[in-house]
C-alpha cells in the first residue's frame, strides 16, 4: 500500500488565512472553531432535553 493511501482528502497545509481588526488577528480556522463552540453552547441551552416527548406522553 503506498503512502498516498494515508494522505488527507482535503489537506489544510496551504498558507493560512487571517482576519484583522485593529490589534486583533485571528486565523479563519480558529474563527470557525470558535463560532462552532459558541453555536454548540447556545444549542446546549436552547435545545430541548432528549426524551421530553416520551415523558410528556407518560404524563
Amino acid at each position, binding site marked *: 500500500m503506498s503512502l498516498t493511501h494515508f494522505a488527507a482528502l482535503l*489537506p*489544510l497545509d496551504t498558507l*493560512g488565512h487571517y482576519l484583522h481588526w485593529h490589534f*486583533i488577528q485571528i*486565523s479563519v480556522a480558529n474563527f470557525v*472553531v470558535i463560532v462552532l463552540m459558541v453555536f454548540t453552547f447556545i444549542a446546549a*441551552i436552547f435545545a*430541548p432535553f432528549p426524551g421530553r416527548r416520551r415523558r410528556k406522553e407518560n404524563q
Partner: protein
Amino acid sequence: MSKRFRPDVDVAPWKGGHSPYDIIKEGTIALVVVGLLTLILAVVFGSPDELAITIKTWSNATPLDFAATALSELNLTSGTAQYGAPYNNASTGQQLGPLQLAKWVGARIPINTVNDFVIDPLKSLPAQPDLSTGLKQWSSASSATRSHWVSSYTKASAKMTFVNGQVTVTASDVGPLPVLINNLTEMARSGALDQALVTQAGFYTTDFTLPLLFLADGSYLASLADHQHLTGDQWGMMNETGNYPGQAWLWLYTFWYQIPPFNASGNGDVLVWGLMMALSVVLLLVPFIPGLRSIPRKTRIYRVIWREHYQSVAKE
C-alpha cells in the same frame, strides 16, 4: 435561632420528584461520537506536518545569516549569550516587580556560546591542517587577544559575503576567525553540526536545547515563524501552521501580549503569567466572591435550560 437563608450559598431542600439518569450511557455516547468525529476529521483534513527545521536547512537557505549568528555567539551578542538564567548570568532576566524570578532559578543549564556552539563542535571534526592550526591558535591565545580578533572581525562583518561555498570577510588582525567561521558554516551545511550539538547531550538524542537555541539566535527561524503567523505579536500562541485551527483556548493568555503594557515590556512573559495566575485564582474562588458568585442566579440562564420544569411549577 435559625440561620438566615443565603441564596448564593445555601440550598433549599428539593421537594419535587426524581428521574433516573444514566451517566455511563451518556459518557459512552459522547466517547463514541467524539471518537468518530476525530476519525472522520483526520481522514478528511489530515494533520499539520511541517518538516523539521534543522541547522542544515537554515545554513543552506541563508548561509550568511548562519555565519553572522555564529559570530554573534563568539562576540556574545546573540540572544542566548545575553539571555541570563537558566543559561548564564548575563542579565537579570524576567522579574515580577522586585521579585527576580529568573535570577532565583540561576544558570541551571549553563551554556557557553563560544565553546558550546562554535569551538567544541569544530573540535569534533576530523583533523584538517588549517582547522587544527586555527583551533590551536584560538586555544593558546589570551582572552584579550581573542576579544581583539572577534572585535576586528565583527567590525568587518558588515561586508561579509558568501561565494562558492565560502564565507569571506576582508579584515586584518582577526586571527583564526575566518577559518573557524568558514569551517563551522561548512559543517552546518553538511548536517554535521546538528549531530554534534545533539550528541554533546548524552547517549539518547532527546535533548535538542543547543540546536534549538542556535536556530532561535538567527533570523531564519523568526522569519519562517512570522510567515506562518506564529510570533508573539501575531497571536502566535493560538495559531497552527497552514490552515489548521490552533489552540483557540489560549486566546486570553495570548490577548495580553497584544496590548500595553505587556507588549512593550521586557518582562512581558512573567507579567502575563502573573496576571493569568491571579485570574485563575479568582476563577477558583468564584463560589466565595460576593457578586461574582451571584451571576448564575441573577442571569437566570438556568431557567432557560430547565424551562419545562419552571413552566410546570408555574402552572401548579
